C-alpha cells in the first residue's frame, strides 16, 4: 500500500515533474469542456481546411491539413488552455503551495504544460494517421523537422502562456489577454495563405511573427506543397531562417515567462 508513497530513493527532478503532470492530466481529463472542445475541434478544422486548400489533393492535402491542425491544437492547448489553467492554479493558491515543497518552479511549469502538449500531440498524430489513410500519404523525408517545429512551437507557446498568465487577473479575463496572439499569430503565420502573396515589407514582418517559423518548418517536414504546388523539400536549404526565428522566439518567450509569471494569487 505504502509503496506508492515511499519511494526507495529521492525522486529526480523529472520524476517530481511527472508526478504532478499525472495529476494535471487526470484533472484535464475530468474537465469535460476542455476535452469536448479539443476533440470536437479536429473535425471542424479538417472540414474548414479542405475548403481552404481547394486545389490540393492526396499527400499534399494531408500535409497542409496536418500543419493547420498541429498549429491550432498547439495554439488552443499550449497557449490558450495553458494560460487559463495557470491562472486558475495561481488564483486558487495551488501554484505557490506547490513551490513551498521540494518541487521547483521549473518543475511545476513543466507539469502544468505537459498535459496540454500531449493532448495536442495525440490529436495531431491521430488526425495525421487518419488523413494519411484516407486522403493520401505525404513525402516525409524531413519529418524530423516537423517534430522539431512541433516541440519548439509547444515550448515557445507554453512559455508565452506563462508570461500571459502573469498579465491575467482572472480565468475569465484570459479570453481577452490571449486575444492578441490568437488573432495575429495565425493570420500572419502563413497558415491560410502563403506569405509570398504579401508585399515585401509586410512579408518580412510576418515571417518574424511567432507561428511563422513553426508553420514553415512543419510544412517542409510534412512535405506540404509550396505556393506554386511544388514540393518544399527542395527548399531544405531555406530552413535556416525559420529555425533562427524560432530560436529567437524561444529565447524571448523564456525571458518573458521568467519576468512576468506570477506565483501569488492577487488578493
Amino acid at each position, binding site marked *: 500500500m*505504502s509503496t506508492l508513497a515511499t519511494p526507495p530513493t529521492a525522486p529526480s527532478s523529472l520524476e*517530481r515533474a511527472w508526478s*504532478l503532470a499525472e495529476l494535471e492530466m*487526470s484533472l484535464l481529463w475530468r474537465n469535460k469542456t476542455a476535452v469536448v472542445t479539443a476533440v470536437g475541434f479536429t473535425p471542424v478544422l479538417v472540414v474548414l481546411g479542405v475548403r481552404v486548400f481547394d486545389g490540393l489533393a492526396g499527400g499534399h492535402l494531408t500535409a497542409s491539413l496536418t500543419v493547420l491542425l498541429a498549429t491550432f491544437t498547439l495554439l488552443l492547448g499550449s497557449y490558450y488552455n495553458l494560460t487559463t489553467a495557470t491562472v486558475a492554479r495561481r488564483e*486558487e*493558491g*495551488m501554484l505557490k503551495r506547490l513551490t*513551498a515543497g521540494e518541487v521547483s518552479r521549473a518543475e511545476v511549469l513543466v507539469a502544468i504544460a505537459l498535459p496540454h502538449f500531449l493532448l495536442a500531440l495525440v490529436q495531431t498524430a491521430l488526425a495525421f494517421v487518419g488523413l494519411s489513410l484516407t486522403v493520401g500519404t505525404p513525402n516525409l523525408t524531413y519529418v524530423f523537422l516537423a517534430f522539431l517545429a512541433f516541440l519548439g512551437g509547444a515550448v515557445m507557446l507554453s512559455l508565452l502562456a506563462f508570461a500571459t498568465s502573469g498579465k491575467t487577473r482572472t480565468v475569465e479575463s484570459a479570453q481577452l489577454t490571449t486575444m492578441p496572439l490568437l488573432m495575429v499569430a495565425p493570420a500572419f503565420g502563413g497558415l491560410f495563405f502563403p506569405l509570398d502573396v504579401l508585399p515585401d515589407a509586410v512579408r518580412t514582418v510576418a515571417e518574424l511573427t511567432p507561428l511563422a517559423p513553426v508553420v514553415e518548418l512543419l510544412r517542409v517536414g510534412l512535405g506540404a506543397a509550396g505556393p506554386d504546388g511544388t514540393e518544399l523539400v527542395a527548399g531544405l536549404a531555406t530552413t535556416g531562417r525559420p529555425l533562427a526565428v524560432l530560436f529567437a522566439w524561444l529565447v524571448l518567450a523564456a525571458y518573458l515567462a521568467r519576468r512576468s509569471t506570477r506565483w501569488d494569487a492577487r488578493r
Partner: protein
Amino acid sequence: MNTTAPVIEVSGLRRTYRGSSAKESFEAVRGVDLEVHRGEVFALLGTNGAGKTSLLEVVEGLASPSAGRVRVFGHDPVAERRHVRPRTGVVLQHSAFPPDAKVLEMARTWGRTLSEAQPVEEVLELVGLAHRADVAAGALSGGERRRLDLALAIMGRPELLFLDEPTTGLDPESRSTTWQTVRGLVAQGTTVVLTSHYLEEVEQLADRIAVMHAGVVVREGTPAELVAGQAARIEFTLASDERLPELRGEHVAVRSHGTVRHVVTTHALEDDLRALLAWGARNGLSLGALDARSASLEQLFLDVARSADDATVTPQEIPA
C-alpha cells in the same frame, strides 16, 4: 542556553515589494534579527500587516530578501533549496487545491515529490481526514482543506515546520485536531515556527515569541517574560457607591444600569485582590461578577498595537 547551531538565523532582514514607481514600493520587513533553535516552538505575533507573512516567506525560501541574511540549517533557503526543502514543511496562510482533485490523489501526488514520505494513509489519519480520502478538494470544508494542507506539510517528516495561521477560520474541533497534531510533532523534536491570532493557543504552545509591528520585532522573549511587565486586571460590580480601600493598582469606576463597575489594573494582583475581598467581607458587600486575571499576552498584543498607532515604537528586547 543552546550550544548547537540555530536552525534559523536571520540578520538585518529587509523585504521590499517593488511597485511600478518608487512611491508604490513598500517595505514590509524593515530589519529583523532572529534565531530559532532546534526543538523550539517559535511564534510570530503581530497585527495584520505587521510583516509576519512577508518575513516567513523569506525564511521559507519562497522569496529573496531585499537586504540581510537568512540561513536555515546553515543554508541559503533560496540558492541552496535542495539542502533545505527536504527538511522543511510549510503551511501557507492562503492555499487551496484544484477543486476536482481528490484528497487521497492530492496527497499521493505530493508524497511522490518528496525525498522521504510517510505513508499517505497514515498522514491523513493523523490529521483526521482518512474518512474523506475520496472527496474532491472543492467539496471539503475550510477546516478540512486546512488539515489537508497540514497533512502535505508534515508528510516528508520535516525537522522544521512553518505554520502561517494554521487555525484561522477553523471551528474549535478542527483547531484542536491541528494543535494536537502539532504537539505530537513537537514531542518528537520538530522545530515549529508559527503565526496565529489565537493568543491563548500561542501562549500555551510557544517556547519563545516575537511580536512584530510595522516590519520590525518590537518584543521578544518567552511567554512568561513577555507578560511579566504587563498589569493584571480585577473587575467587579457593586450595588451602590462605595469608597474602595487603599489599593496598589490603578482604579476606575463606571456607573451603569444602577450598579457601579470597577476595574483595577495592578502589578500586585494577589495583594490587591486580598485587600478587596477582606474589605468586602468586613463591610458585608458582595463583589458581583468578580473577575481577576493575570497579565496576558492579549494585553501585551493590544498595547503594542496601540503604542504603534502612536507612531513611534522603540524596539526592545527582553534578554533570554
